């Protein structure tokens, strides 16, 4: 595993398997009466959320707390950031306070990478601009593997505002990495021009794609990121690309409907479709905690920060305590 998780390009197919398998063990921890283990006792995890997000922050907070790490939440409102502090100064402050890991959400693409140049701790990208959201992709892969038993060869359509969606980018990269077949579906204005280089198919006709799918992944229409008019009206978008009950009926038996949340019911997904049994949207949320525990454990449970390979550090010479026996 890399020291940081900035992009799905940072993880190999083997890493994905390890992250998902470890998340399975944390899922078991989440089913106990006492949902907490001492694995990261004494480590400090900072949630640096400089763009509004409640769901992802809560998920990371719960994940870190269930690992017994100390959690600091740092949001833009009411913090030094609102007094004009730069990201660099914020980072250096957190560094000075001894953060072992920083989970960053930022409206600018690439800010997590920039952060790695200023701090020694592990950096986890919790969504940067229109770039990537790798923990969402991993929890989606976990949900698909849990429900469908495999990832290799799965046929997945990602439908909607792909252009502005960091979720779509991370998920596409992740799915292609593990051997799934991905089709991006949406109006031509919302399909990224470079999608040809992602190793995915593109379609502008949702109804021709639906009957061949294992997973139909609906994206939220992100009006807040759209600086231009990419489609004439919400009503037209819903009519052409929304997942209605009739369209959901075109999906094969046993296929899944997924959505990263928060949903715009009546825009990209009709309300009755969101409540169908094959819609696993709340399951995605539950699995998100286990995936984030897995990532924090795998990143922080290795050698100490500032020691890239772990090979030359004093810690690496600690005798094998009880790997096999004892």
């Amino acid at each position, binding site marked *: 595993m890399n020291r940081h998780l900035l992009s799905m390009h940072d993880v190999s197919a083997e890493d994905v398997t390890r992250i998902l398998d470890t998340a399975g063990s944390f899922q078991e921890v989440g089913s106990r009466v*006492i949902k907490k283990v001492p*694995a990261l006792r004494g480590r400090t995890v900072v949630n640096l959320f400089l763009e509004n997000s409640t769901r992802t922050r809560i998920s990371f907070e719960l994940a870190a707390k269930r690992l017994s790490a100390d959690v600091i939440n740092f949001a833009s409102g009411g913090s030094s950031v609102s007094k004009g502090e730069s990201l660099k100064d914020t980072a250096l402050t957190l560094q000075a306070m001894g953060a072992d890991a920083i989970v960053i959400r930022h409206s600018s693409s690439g800010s997590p990478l920039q952060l790695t140049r200023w701090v020694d701790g592990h950096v986890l990208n919790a969504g940067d601009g229109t770039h990537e959201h790798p923990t969402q992709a991993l929890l989606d892969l976990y949900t698909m593997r849990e429900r469908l038993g495999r990832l290799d060869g799965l046929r997945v359509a990602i439908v909607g505002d792909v252009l502005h969606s960091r979720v779509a980018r991370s998920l596409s990269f992740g799915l292609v990495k593990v051997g799934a077949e991905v089709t991006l579906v949406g109006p031509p204005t919302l399909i990224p021009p470079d999608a040809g280089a992602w190793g995915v198919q593109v379609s502008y006709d949702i109804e021709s794609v639906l009957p061949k799918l294992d997973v139909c992944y609906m994206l939220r229409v992100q009006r807040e990121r759209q600086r231009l008019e990419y489609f004439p009206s919400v009503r037209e978008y819903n009519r052409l690309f929304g997942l209605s009950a009739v369209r959901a009926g075109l999906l094969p038996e046993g296929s899944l409907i997924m959505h990263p949340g928060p949903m715009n019911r009546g825009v990209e997904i009709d309300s009755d479709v969101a409540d169908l049994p094959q819609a696993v949207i709340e399951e995605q949320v539950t699995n998100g905690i286990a995936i984030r525990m897995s990532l924090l*454990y795998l990143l*922080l449970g290795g*050698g100490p920060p500032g020691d890239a390979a*772990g090979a030359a550090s004093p810690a690496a010479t600690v005798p094998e305590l009880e790997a096999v*026996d*004892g």
Partner: protein
Amino acid sequence: MSSTLLDADDIRRALTRIAHEIVERDKGPEGVALVGIANRGDDLARRLAAEIQAIERSAVPVGALDITFYRDDIGMKAEAPEVHETRIDFDINGKTVVLVDDVLFTGRTIRAAMDALMDFGRPFRIRLAVLVDRGHRELPIRADFVGKNVPTRRTDDVRVRVREVDGEDAVVIARTPDEVSIDAGGEIPSNAGRTP
């Protein structure tokens, strides 16, 4: 250089004896549950449960416990320790839980296992059954049931192989060629500077 300490028949006889001792200690299998420490300890626990079933005609609950998240050396190696499955499908409250492990060495795994078990409830008591006790304890822990006591050097590598994981049953000891004589006492002064 490696040699076999126990073969498949030795292991079978040891487990049969331990199964008898477990039910003898508590005058029957009532209230007894077996929890094996992953991996390999869980396989041994399932075999002990089958032996007890054969002896007493009564099933004892059996579970698997992964202790990774309770280890005392997380963050001290380059890679986070590998995680195995935990599966305890029964209530441990008030039970006599027999922890089962393949090799008892420093005792640190057992310390972690007791902490892990406490997160599942409050057992009446915890006992410990191991296939091999190789000495060199670093914590005040001892086994209640032992398959075989084996004097070793601290640097020896003692491995239990079970057919469920390794395709065969055997206990194998490996040592570097220059360390030929077995230290009969099994007590070499502990390495200086060893951190908890």
